[in-house]
């Protein structure tokens, strides 16, 4: 059960617009599951429902058998779900290390008075948090940026830092929102390697929304193609890409819907 995720008959309406309609899928443990589709297909909407920014209009979400359809967003991390953002949401006036340590926040359970007094138990916990953060820094090769402010780091590095901060929460399920957006070709390729390492070395289940088909083909075990809020096709990357419905949605025929998904 660990790390498994399922969506049942998920739907989302914004006023009269049906952004997502009757979407059902299951993600197995340790799998990289990608959601693709043209602009406005409903990818980000699904993502925001999984990470509980939006409450679905209908259907349900289950993580490790537990119903998470109506759980508060701040409780997601404690369950073992972490996410990154398309446009990078880091604590930009803090250092890289501080950002990773905040990722450890959900694993800390010491009382406020003992924290003020900096008791030995707090000290031990802090050392452990620091050790785990350093492991992540080493895993992603971020050593030389450790004490730099996020605001001073290049975009490509920040993208990796966000990945690192998500790993610091020790997730069982990682949600990646367009990991390649804003990256150049080499950086995108590198991002693909990180994703494969995370899957193989850490055994973390990954759900990813992505535009770059090269990256999708390189890392995905299964792909789900969406158009206008409905599932077009599910299968391996090659199967989905050769599906005539998918080709039609991408290359022409389907009218371009409203761009609610663009952000």
């Amino acid at each position: 059960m660990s790390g498994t995720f399922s969506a049942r008959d998920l739907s989302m309406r914004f006023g009269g617009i049906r952004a997502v309609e009757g979407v059902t899928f299951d993600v197995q443990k340790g799998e990289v599951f990608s959601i693709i589709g043209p602009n406005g297909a409903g990818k980000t909407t699904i993502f925001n429902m999984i990470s509980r920014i939006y409450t679905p209009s209908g259907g349900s979400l289950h993580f490790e058998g537990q119903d998470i359809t109506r759980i508060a967003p701040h409780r997601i991390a404690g369950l073992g779900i972490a996410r990154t953002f398309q446009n990078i949401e880091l604590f930009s006036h803090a250092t890289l290390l501080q950002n990773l340590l905040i990722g450890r926040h959900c694993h800390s359970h010491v009382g406020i008075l003992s924290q003020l007094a900096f008791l030995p138990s707090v000290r031990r916990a802090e050392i452990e948090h620091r050790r785990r953060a350093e492991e992540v820094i080493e895993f992603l090769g971020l050593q030389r940026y450790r004490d730099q402010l996020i605001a001073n780091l290049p975009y490509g590095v920040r993208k990796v830092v966000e990945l690192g901060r998500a790993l610091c929460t020790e997730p069982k399920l990682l949600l990646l929102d367009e990991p390649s957006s804003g990256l150049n070709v080499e950086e995108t390729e590198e991002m693909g390697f990180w994703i494969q390492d995370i899957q193989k070395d850490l055994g973390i289940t990954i759900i990813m929304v992505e535009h770059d088909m090269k990256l999708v083909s390189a890392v995905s075990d299964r792909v789900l193609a969406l158009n206008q809020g409905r599932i077009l096709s599910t299968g391996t990357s090659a199967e989905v890409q050769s599906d005539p419905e998918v080709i039609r949605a991408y290359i022409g025929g389907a009218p371009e819907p409203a761009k609610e998904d663009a952000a």
Partner: protein
Amino acid sequence: MGKRAGMDDLVRLLQLAVNGTAAGCIYGLVALGFVLIYKATEMVNFAQGELMMLGAFFAYTFVGLWGLNYWLGFGLAIAATAAFGYALDAVVLRRVIGQPQFAVVMLTLGLAFIFRAVAGAVWGYDAVGFTTPFTNKTANFGGGVVLGQDNVSIIIGTVILCLVLYLFFSRTRLGIAMQASSQNQLAAYYMGIPVRTVFSLIWAISAGVAAVAAVLLVPVQMIDVNMGLIGIKAFAAAVLGGFGSIPGALVGGIIVGIVEQLAGYYLPAGSMELTSNIVLLAVLIVWPQGLFGQVIRKRV
């Protein structure tokens, strides 16, 4: 003779500086309340001075009316005002997050009027006070330097409070969660931080700090429903410090306090009330972002 006069001038200057610093600490603490709330929620709370006024009346109720021990009453006043601040956010202000800034301005200004009216109805419009351990006592520092314990207690109290707040924000998980929520709400949620509750707790801290300012102020000023107007000077102090900077709020407060005292002594009567705003204008002309403000440049 000349030497004696020089000494007197120096002592007088020192006393003015201490009085100014004490007044400035109060401005600084109220300004700190503005800044904490603004940094976290981007709301400007124009009722911050009135929260201080309520804190003063709570303390008056506990110590002056019920006859509790000063320190116990001090603690209870902080707790009561903080609880009030928490409830104010949880019940009222949380609902206007994301609304245009002027909605927040009107709402908090309206709340300020309501607080004044309610305080007048409950505690009356006459100025009241109570005796503190520091009232009408002096501390002799030797060399002719005699300062009121009331002013010294304000300065020491402010230093202690700042130290506690510093430790809280840098050492504790909740303090760091508050910093994180201020910097990036969305990311904070996915670090497991209950952002809404954290914001209400920031309101509680701001209100609690206002209550500390109120109780520290009791030995030197009477309590009345209009004492919250000090918030206007505190607002000037916060802007002076770069609105959004915590050390800036305190430094801004102390600058306003000292300038006022010096102006009251050396300049014609009436100029005291003007100086804080003149200083504010002068600083903003030279450094538009305030003394400690972060320069935010937008790439276009």
